[in-house]
């Protein structure tokens, strides 16, 4: 089926639960099948399927969503900020850092960066104004980088305030 793997990949990262993700993708395809007559010819089929996926995800409410993570993501070794070389970033670390983001931030990273949708398409899929998409994407990228490259002074302050 076209796009099934992309849909499942995003659903898994959203729910952090394989069974819940498969249920969401199954429901997405069934809704697409039932409402195919509402699909506007010439519009973007892939974005349409993802829009249904998010409708299903939001409709299922909090219970299907990921619960708060119990284990906090371990802070990596402190690295100099700016110009960081991410090309060889450890896959497991990156994967955990992505899962550690808020649901909103994870969503925009998955759609824009992993699935390659444009900001305009994100706005359509998530029913948000494009300005909101842009600022959310910037903040999401920032959050991810803060997890992956915490500046030493900030980390020190955080530890001090935790005491």
């Amino acid at each position, binding site marked *: 089926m076209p796009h099934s793997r992309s849909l*499942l990949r995003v659903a898994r990262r959203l729910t952090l639960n394989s069974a819940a993700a498969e249920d969401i993708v199954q429901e997405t395809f069934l809704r697409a*099948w039932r409402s*195919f007559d509402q699909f506007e010819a010439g519009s973007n*089929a892939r974005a349409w399927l993802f829009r249904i996926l998010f409708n299903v995800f939001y409709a299922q409410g909090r219970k299907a969503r990921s619960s708060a993570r119990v284990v906090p993501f371990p802070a990596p070794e402190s690295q100099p900020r700016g110009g960081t070389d991410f*090309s060889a970033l450890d896959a497991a670390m*990156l994967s955990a850092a992505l899962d550690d983001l808020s649901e909103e931030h994870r969503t925009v990273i998955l759609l824009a960066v*992993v699935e390659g949708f444009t*900001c305009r398409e994100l706005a359509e899929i998530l029913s948000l104004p494009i300005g909101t998409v842009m600022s959310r994407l910037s903040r999401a990228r920032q959050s991810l*980088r803060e997890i992956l490259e915490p500046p030493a002074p900030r980390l020190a302050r955080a530890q001090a305030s935790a005491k």
Partner: protein
Amino acid sequence: MDCNQVGELAPLYLTGELDRERAGAIDAHLKSCPSCMCELESQAQLDARIREVIGGEKVDAGGVEERVLARISAERLSIVRPISERPAPLHRRRWAIAAAAVAAVLLLAAVSYLDLIRRAARVYADAASDHRREVIQQEPRPWLSDRAAISELAEKQGIAPSALFALSSAPYHIERARLCFLDGKIFLHAVYTDGEREFSVYFRVRGDQTLPGRAREIDNGRILHESTLGNQQVAGVQTKDLTVMVVSDRDSDDALHVARLAAETL
């Protein structure tokens, strides 16, 4: 453009959605601002690594696909069932399952086809923007204007030069030509003029591809496709050997007129 504006527009810059003017302004800023340059390079590198790691994860959707087909079959059966309270005979159930599978395959084929239409739209959009830049805004390009040189260029692309000259119907004549890329494919771009107005025709050997999209009319048994993009009108037609797209101003009917001419004469 300052660092804050670059930061605000970075999402559109990284997804390639910015118009040429603003993308150019960012490029200019990056050349003179090592800090923004470094920041955006890091971000692009992180994006690439995310795509590689997360996008490269193995995902097996086989189980979900099977269940979707089974559910569609079940829904089909529930439509058959009310006729009789008893379970449908085995042969009817088999028929319903087969019908559901066919329906599902048709749906998915339709989804893929709509993606094709979108790709076609990209060819039209590329043609309209190429015409806008090279003909209307007259951005400098190395054009061939000599008739023999244009013929040679066409022949190298497998296009009969007679096709180019066949569209030179009075008062228009072919004035210049060059090669260009539309949606990643090479087209021969020819510009025709009557001394005042100009229109563009993009030629390519047809091969196996078909030109999908909304049909406007059928001329000489050939489907004419039409699309309006900004101030441009794009009309496309496919003959036995060629894919031909014509771009003109929206307020003239030149594109359609020439596409009709191509359908009749090529």
